[in-house]
């Protein structure tokens, strides 16, 4: 989630903080100190986070803009909680929040998922003495309760501002470290952005699910088989080097300070499972199915950013036993070598995926719909067209005829069966002299069968019954035919 930092630069922020000792600080200095700490943390542990800095008083200025669009956002508001007076002040704005016109809506709630963190360069007592705290709490409430207010504990000094920003870092910017495992091959990784807990709406007992720190690969699937699955979120999986004390050395990127360079070079040169996995996934065009928790899975794959750069990426599926209909239940996926016959074929020409559903969908099974007159007319014309090409089209003629018959019976549309019979009888009278003699027999036979069905007589009106072509014998040479 990108972060927008809003720094209060109003006059009250220059109020001096009484510190026993030599130096005198303004609240502004404390804010800058805290933010520096936050930014330094991000630069080392959360380096891919996009951050923007805006300073405001009665006006505002974007000091560092985002370089891209956002879908979600974390907003860090740094203020001393002196809310100002009169028009345009927060106090006034909140009081008149309901009177605003459509095009001048209060900015909260934001039109995108967001978290609002308010960092007060003031302590709680100070804020509670006025209505500042209430107003700030109202801000969080307006944001749907997403966010938190942090205040300083004890005297306003560098130490307490550090401790306050430390809490924010723990809450919102702690990196997600995990172990990626494929049997006995493992790698320590950072997952970025860190996966947030997921709650499924439609659950009887909704519980937020968190990604476990042990990411276990369960097997592999071709990209064509997994077939652009829907995912909740995407994350980079960055291998990290962990030294003996368990401290992270870094992600091994090369743009570090000089003293870090040698350690990172070493990390770069020792084989890492992530790099091997990434390379093979890329070359083979496959994904690795990875378990994120009980009944929760995701996939690892190579994501190319450009021709040169590519990365190991992890996408999270919706929690549940069957996140993708075309894979079936994940717990039922097992090693292909356990199958009696290789499901991929000896020459890799087959695939067990996608799983076919038990019933075909309407568009895959030639259903009959006569809601519109044109649908009915098309079906009738289709039969007549084939009727005129008898006996060559005998099979299609009866197939279409039976389709119409079935639908008419189901819809209780017996009148149609009678009309169709009449149409076929008329076709019979319109046959030219050169017409094949079989045509006349088939037409009158079909017409008669439809009439019988339209009587509702269970012997002839059974749904599963099909009208079959009349057996005639014109090709036999004898000229005699069975009727």
């Amino acid at each position, binding site marked *: 989630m990108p972060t927008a930092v809003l720094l209060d630069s109003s006059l009250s922020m220059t109020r001096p903080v009484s510190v026993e000792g030599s130096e005198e600080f303004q609240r502004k200095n404390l804010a800058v100190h805290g933010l520096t700490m936050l930014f330094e943390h991000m630069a080392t542990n959360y380096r891919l986070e996009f951050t923007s800095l805006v300073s405001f008083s009665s006006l505002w200025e974007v000091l560092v803009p985002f370089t*891209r669009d*956002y879908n979600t956002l974390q907003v860090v508001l740094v203020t001393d909680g002196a809310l100002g007076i009169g028009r345009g002040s927060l106090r006034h704005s909140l009081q008149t929040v309901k009177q605003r016109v459509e095009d001048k809506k209060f900015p909260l709630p934001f039109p995108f998922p967001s978290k609002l963190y308010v960092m007060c360069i003031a302590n709680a007592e100070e804020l509670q003495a006025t209505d500042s705290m209430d107003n700030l709490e109202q801000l969080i409430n307006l944001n749907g309760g997403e966010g938190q207010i942090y205040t300083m504990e004890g005297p306003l000094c560098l130490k307490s501002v550090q401790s306050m920003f430390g809490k924010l870092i723990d809450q919102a910017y702690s990196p997600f470290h995990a172990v990626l495992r494929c049997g006995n091959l493992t790698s320590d990784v950072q997952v970025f952005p860190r996966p947030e807990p997921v709650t499924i709406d439609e659950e009887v007992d909704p519980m937020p699910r968190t990604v476990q720190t042990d990411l276990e*690969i369960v097997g592999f699937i071709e990209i064509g088989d997994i077939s652009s699955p829907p995912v909740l979120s*995407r994350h980079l999986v960055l291998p990290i080097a962990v030294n003996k004390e368990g401290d992270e050395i870094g992600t*091994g990127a090369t743009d570090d300070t000089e003293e870090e360079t040698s350690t990172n070079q070493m990390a*770069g040169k020792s084989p890492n499972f992530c*790099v091997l996995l990434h390379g093979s996934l890329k070359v083979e065009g496959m994904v690795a199915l990875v378990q994120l928790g009980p009944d929760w899975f995701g996939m690892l794959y190579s994501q190319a950013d450009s021709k040169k750069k590519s990365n190991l990426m992890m996408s999270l599926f919706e929690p549940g036993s069957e996140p993708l209909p075309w894979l079936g239940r994940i*717990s039922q996926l097992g090693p292909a070598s356990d199958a009696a016959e290789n499901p991929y074929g000896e020459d890799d020409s087959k695939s067990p995926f996608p799983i076919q559903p038990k019933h075909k969908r309407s568009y895959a099974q030639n259903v009959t719909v006569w809601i519109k007159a044109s649908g009915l007319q098309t079906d009738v014309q289709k039969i007549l067209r084939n009727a005129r090409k008898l006996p060559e089209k005998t099979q299609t003629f009866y197939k279409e005829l039976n389709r119409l018959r079935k639908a008419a019976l189901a819809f209780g549309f017996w009148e149609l069966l009678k009309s169709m019979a009449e149409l076929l009888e008329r076709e019979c009278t319109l046959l030219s002299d050169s017409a094949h003699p079989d045509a006349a027999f088939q037409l009158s036979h079909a017409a008669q069968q439809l009439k019988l069905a339209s009587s509702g007589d269970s012997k002839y009106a059974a749904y599963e019954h099909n009208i079959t072509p009349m057996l005639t014998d014109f090709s036999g040479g004898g000229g005699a035919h069975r009727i």
Partner: protein
Amino acid sequence: MFSVSHKTAFVVDHCPYMAESCRQLIECDMLTKSRSQGVIPLAPVSKSLWTCAIECSMEYCRILFDVYPTWKLVNYIVSDSEVHILNSWKQEDQNTHELMAALAAVGPPNPRQDPECCSVLHGLVAAVESLCKITEYQHESRTTLMDTADRVANRGRIICLTNAKSDTHVRMLEDCVLETIQEQNKRAAGSDRLMPIQQCELVLVHIYPQGEETLVSDRQKKELSSMLSSEVHSVRAGRYLASKLNVLVQQHFDLASTTITNIPMKEEQHANTSANYDVELLHHRDAHMEFIKSGDLHMAGSTSRDSGLKETVTLKWCTPRTNSVELHYCTGAYRISPVDVNSRPSSCLTNFLLNGRSVLLEQPRKSGSKVISHMLSSHGGEIFLHVLNSTRSTLEDPPSISEGCGGRVTDYRITDFGEFMRENRLTPFPDSMIDAAGRTPVERAKSQLERYTRYWPMIISQTTIFNMQAVVPLANLIVKDTLTDEDVLTCQKTVYNLVDMERKSDPLPISTVGSRGKGPKRDEQYRIMWNELETLVKAHVGTSERHQRVLECISACRSKPPEEEERKKRGRKREDKEDKTEKNGKDTEEKGWTTDSERLKGVMEREKDEQSECEIIKDSPDSPEPLNKKPRLATEEQQPPEKSKGLALPSASEGVVERNHHI
């Protein structure tokens, strides 16, 4: 999970008055000009109220089953002098084919039946009883939740298609439903297979013939009690009823409409020309979530032509198409159902997709910029509308994997791991497929990965045996859960083959990375190779007694440990003798294998070529194609001498490294 839409009971009136004509005429005799002379056209046909009700309700079910093949259940009830329940809540009963067959058996209403004993009330009572019956899904949920089973809700909807007499008649029907719910809930409280109804939506659709005044007034949804709400729709039969039910199915199941425009289609008459067509699809409305959130919902006209009042989002067909091996970032996939399933444009589109092709869809924007927002694709005969992420990603421009940990290593066994992945591909097993140890297929997959990786060096220069074709048969077998006697034999043959190679002093693909010159001497190479092979087999020795036999074979056949080698060097003569006695001792045992080793000679010749290839780097992790080999980084020059120990060959003793440096 168990919302009102989990259970839908259709109650269709089958009383004599439903046999009445809807009075919309359909011309089915379309005479062509050339044939029309002297022929009297057939009188047009018209559907009965019953036929209209049936086909519209079937259309409702068709769309429902297309979009929700599971979880959303229909119970179809027909009512006249008695109740005909055409199916159950069972999942296997949820398809239009079964319903059509059952409806054919019921047939149209009999106009001569005594109207006094016929009523839709029978059906409504049956519908309430049916809503109390537990579905498979509710049952499963209650069983898994155990002590919190009471959280499983029982809600449902009754859609009643009838021809009512008056508003008073409608009220009477509503009262009857309410009373029945109260009655049935009492009964249900004491039963395992029944559940009291917590919430029921009654949707009464009054159908009357065209040209008549309606006797029943429309009424918005109204709460009749805490359990029952009711709404009344008064609709003319025919296409009005069809569009009403189309609107209802969209409301009831949170559907939305998308119209695909600009679909290029070949003309039937002129095969070389093509025209553009539109096809309207229904799907879950979440497929439009991005548009709704961004306020960018583009309405092409405020109404769609086919579905009456509902709005539709227009998306444009895009060429070129996408291929299946491309992994799109997709945030949702929703099943679709075409509004006009039988029309030529619809079936052309659906057949195109069912044949395995995918289409990207573009969102027309006022600014004229092109944004691909969706994709249509079929999986296993089902068509899905995929939502593609069209906002810019927060993961743009990340560092390349080659810049991170392990990124500078260039001799990863990319091809071998690719082979490993193919061997560990997944496949679906039937639900009952649990092995003797009670493991599910996915657990077996994990345990296979564990076995296959017990000894798996990641880089080419860390291994000798995996660069040798001759070891492949053994390496493939030893990781298996169970070995047959034949497998053991194959492993032994592999070992004997290696012995043979050693006897002939065939060169081995020992890595020379980190050392100057040619690397270790031949006998040293074999010692390294044997040690590594032993490491591999030892990792599996606990699997079974047959695995143990493979290790025993290696221990018996492999070249001697270094101390002995040293002694040999000191006294060459004695060694010859020893060798002979050893040979004699083994003679009987080995005889059978000599022919085999003869046969394997040809194989080994080929291997020699491959071995020399193995010494070149197979792949670089960063290269897009395996062929695109990068020159190996000049590690030799950069690394201080002691770093060469970092090779960590399983058997690389100090002595070996020392010797390398002297050469």
